[in-house]
Structure formats: structure tokens, C-alpha cells
């Protein structure tokens, strides 16, 4: 029973990673860039929902929606301002810019909300008692798992069936050919950032609800872990990000429970290295041979 409860906490932690990783992977797949500021958008989502609930006393649902709207706009704004001018620049320049944006967001948060950790009231409280009371699972864990599955399925459906989603896949493969189809590549990339950032806001609310605390660096470590999860599952792949996130969360939770809390992160990254040695494209990644 103890194992089961560790497993569930691993799955719910992994679900948060997966939601963040889905944003990473969408943006990477279409814009072909690693948006290292993604983790900090999570933090902004956390603060917006925190302020909405704590200062404005808005209902939780409204607070979450507000965070989603603000982060979506922030994502579009960041892309327009920082990344779009670098569309034809070397990828290293884009990467460094993304790191710059990440620091910019963290330090802006430091300026606005100060360094001290805020205590965050979970958006959903309470615990479900399962199996005749032998297993208790918090509602926020259940909500996180359900949210993650719903998001993964709707994204998959969106990308495979909708006109916009297909245009995203076309841009991902060949931007020049996509333009010759009449697809507005810039608008498509903007839409991708909007979706990724909206997911980051949801992840931010869930993450802060787990940790019950919030500070300007809240997003960095989960951001890096989720990036790892995306690579682990095969970056660019939506089911890959989902699987990678879940596995990462489970490995982390079990390592914390049975090996050592301090070694947990080391074990997580060791597993990543082993997986990449065996499958360089990640678990579900397509290994595309370099075109000559």
C-alpha cells in the first residue's frame, strides 16, 4: 500500500512535468527552438493565480483562467519581441536569447513580488480515501492526473485533425513549403507559443498547489526537469512528452522513497543518460537521418 501511494504521488508529479514538457515539445517541434524561458512562464502563472486569489479574492476557477490568459499573452509577446527577429539567426543566438528571457522574467518577478517565498493555498483541497481508507490521495493529485491526460489527448487530436494543427505539422517539417501552401508561418508559430504558455499557466497553478509555496525561481527546476522529460520521451513528440513526464515523475518519487531524497535528482538524470545512450532520439522520438 505504501508503494501504491508513492506510485500515485509519482504519477501526479509526473503529470505536472508532462504538462510542462508538452509545451516544450510543441514549441520545439514547430519553431525548432528550446524555449528555456518556458519554466519561468510557469512561475508567472503561479504568481498571477496567487494574486488573483489572495489579493483580489477571485474564485479559484477565475484565478486559473486569468493566469492562463495572462501567460498566453506573455508567450505571444515574448515570441514576437525576443524570438521572431531571430528567425533566421543561428540556433545558438536563439538559445542564448531564451536564457536571457528566462533571467529577465525571474528578475522581474523578484522586483514585483520580492524574493520571499509566498505560501500558496492549493486551488483544490481535501483528500480522497480509497480502498477502505487504506490509501489516501489528495484531490489535487487526482485533478493533476486527469488534467494531464485530457490535455495530452486534446493536443493529439488538435494536431492530427484540425486545420491549424495540420498547418503546425507542415511548418514543423518544411517552413518554405508551408508558406507556398499559403500558411502564415509567423502566425502559426505565435499560436504554438500561445498554446505552450497556456499549458505553462495550468502547470504553474498545479505545481504551486503541490508545493504550497511560490517564489521567483519556482519554475526553473521543474522547467529543466520537464525539458529532460521531453528529451527522454523524444522531443517534438506529444505522446513522448507525456510518457517522458510520467516516467520522470515516477522515477523521482520512487527514488526519493526508497533510495535517498538527496540522490533523487541524480538518479533521474542518470536514467536519462542511459536512455539517450540506448535510444538517442528518446523513447518515442523518430530518429531522422541527417540529409546529405
Amino acid at each position, binding site marked *: 500500500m505504501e508503494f501504491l501511494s508513492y506510485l500515485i504521488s509519482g504519477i501526479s508529479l509526473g503529470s505536472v512535468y508532462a504538462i510542462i514538457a508538452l509545451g516544450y515539445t510543441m514549441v520545439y517541434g514547430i519553431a525548432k527552438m528550446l524555449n528555456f524561458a518556458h519554466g519561468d512562464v510557469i512561475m508567472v502563472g503561479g504568481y498571477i493565480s496567487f494574486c488573483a486569489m489572495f489579493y483580489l479574492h477571485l474564485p479559484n476557477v477565475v484565478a486559473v483562467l486569468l493566469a492562463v490568459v495572462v501567460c498566453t499573452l506573455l508567450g505571444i509577446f515574448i515570441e514576437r519581441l525576443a524570438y521572431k527577429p531571430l528567425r533566421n539567426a543561428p540556433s545558438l543566438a536563439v538559445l542564448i536569447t531564451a536564457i536571457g528571457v528566462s533571467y529577465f522574467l525571474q528578475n522581474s518577478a523578484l522586483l514585483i513580488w520580492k524574493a520571499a517565498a509566498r505560501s500558496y493555498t492549493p486551488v483544490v483541497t481535501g483528500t480522497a480515501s480509497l480502498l477502505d481508507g487504506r490509501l489516501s490521495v489528495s484531490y489535487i493529485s487526482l485533478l493533476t492526473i486527469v488534467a494531464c491526460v485530457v490535455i495530452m489527448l486534446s493536443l493529439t487530436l488538435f494536431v492530427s485533425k484540425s486545420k491549424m494543427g495540420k498547418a503546425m505539422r507542415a511548418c514543423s*517539417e518544411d517552413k518554405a*513549403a508551408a508558406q507556398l*501552401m*499559403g500558411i502564415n508561418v509567423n502566425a502559426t508559430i505565435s499560436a504554438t507559443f500561445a498554446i505552450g504558455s497556456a499549458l505553462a499557466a495550468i502547470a504553474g497553478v498545479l505545481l504551486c498547489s503541490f508545493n504550497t509555496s511560490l517564489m521567483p525561481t519556482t519554475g526553473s527546476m521543474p522547467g529543466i526537469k520537464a525539458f529532460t522529460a521531453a528529451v527522454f520521451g523524444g522531443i517534438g513528440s506529444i505522446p513522448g512528452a507525456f510518457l517522458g513526464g510520467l516516467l520522470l515523475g515516477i522515477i523521482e518519487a520512487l527514488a526519493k522513497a526508497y533510495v535517498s531524497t538527496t540522490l533523487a535528482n541524480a538518479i533521474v538524470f542518470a536514467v536519462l543518460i542511459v536512455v539517450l545512450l540506448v535510444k538517442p532520439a528518446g523513447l518515442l522520438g523518430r530518429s531522422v537521418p541527417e540529409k546529405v
Partner: protein
Amino acid sequence: MGEILKVDDIHVYYGSIHAVKGVSFEVNEGEVVTLIGANGAGKSTILNTVSGLLHPKTGSVVFEGRDLKGVAPHKIVEYGLAQVPEGRHIFQQMSVEENLQMGAYTQLNATVEPGIADVYERFPRLAERRRQIAGTLSGGEQQMLAMGRALMSRPKLLMLDEPSMGLAPILVEQIFDIIRELHSAGTTILLVEQNAQAALSVADRAYVLETGRISLTGTGAELMASDAVRKAYLGG
């Protein structure tokens, strides 16, 4: 027969390389016009400039009376210009049908299904493979898909860049048969080819390009008979 495309004295550069040096030509409605010339003569550069992927430093491109200066490539598609790029550039990881849907991106939803049916009628092979991932098609099938995809936008002008490239002779013949069919159905075509013989045989008019300049012009038949063209491009 109205003028549909007018290219006037365009100069195009890649960085410091002067690739197209003052080229002018026009395409009239219903015509097949071909640009022939050796590798590196600037043929693809001209098509990419017309479709807005490249920008001329000077000179103008006017499509149906509209100056295309500063117009984004996706807008130019909306105006009714479709390009089949060199090397086909189909979406390898998407299915045949999804590729066709992408070709109809600028069209109203209601016209997509009939458009796909038209393409399947013209290219029955594509209908057989509609669910197949496009990257697994043969070279000839990929060229048909690229052409079908371009036709999905119901273009007023279809630009074909090296449609015969890398294909077996029998497939080249098939592709040119299709071009003849499209021509007789009234499609206006601007064709860029290294296979001068085949291109001149379908063309109403032709331009010969040499290192970024037009060196000769005439009807397809005239150029086919010209000594200079025969020596340079038709193997004597």
C-alpha cells in the same frame, strides 16, 4: 489573352552573389511558358522571387496587375499563384490526403473535398495511396503529389520547378503528359526545366537563361530549331 504575370528587370542577390541580373518576361493567360538553362543559370531563383520567398533588389513582379513587392509568400498564394518547388518538398511525415489538404489551406472548407476528388481523378495513383505517409511514395508519385497539392489552391498561375528532376525517362514522359493535359484544360503554367527538349515540346513560348540573363527568346518550336539552343541544350 491577358497578361497574368509580368516580371520587369529584376535583380536578385544571395548575399553578395548577383544571381539574377535584370531579367524581364511575361506570361499570358492560358500559356505554357518555360525558362530553360543550365544548372545555376538562375531559374529557380526567379521562381522563388515570383512566389515571394526571395526579394528582388530592384525591378518588379506584377501578378494580375498587382505589384508583389513586400507581399508575404502566403498572401501571394491567396492571390492565385502556386509553386511546385524544386525537389518537390512534399510533407514527408503527413499522409497523401493531408498533403492535399495543406494545398487547399487558403480555400474555403466546402471546396476542399471536391478539389481532392479532382486531383484523385487526374492522379488515380494518389487515390490508391491516400492514407499512405507521403515520404514512402516513389519519386514519380511524390512529383504527382506535389503537383496535385499545388492544384488544390486552384491557381491562376502554376509554377513548376524542375518537375522531371531525378525521375526515370518513362516517368518524365508521364509528367509532361500531365502538363499537356493541364495546358489543354486552360491552366496557365510557368515551367522551369533543365530538360530543354521536353520543356520546349510543351511550351508556347520559351526563354533561355544564361548566368542570370535571358539570352534568347521565342516560341517553343523556334527555339527547338535554333542552332544555339540545339548545341547548348539539346546535345547537337
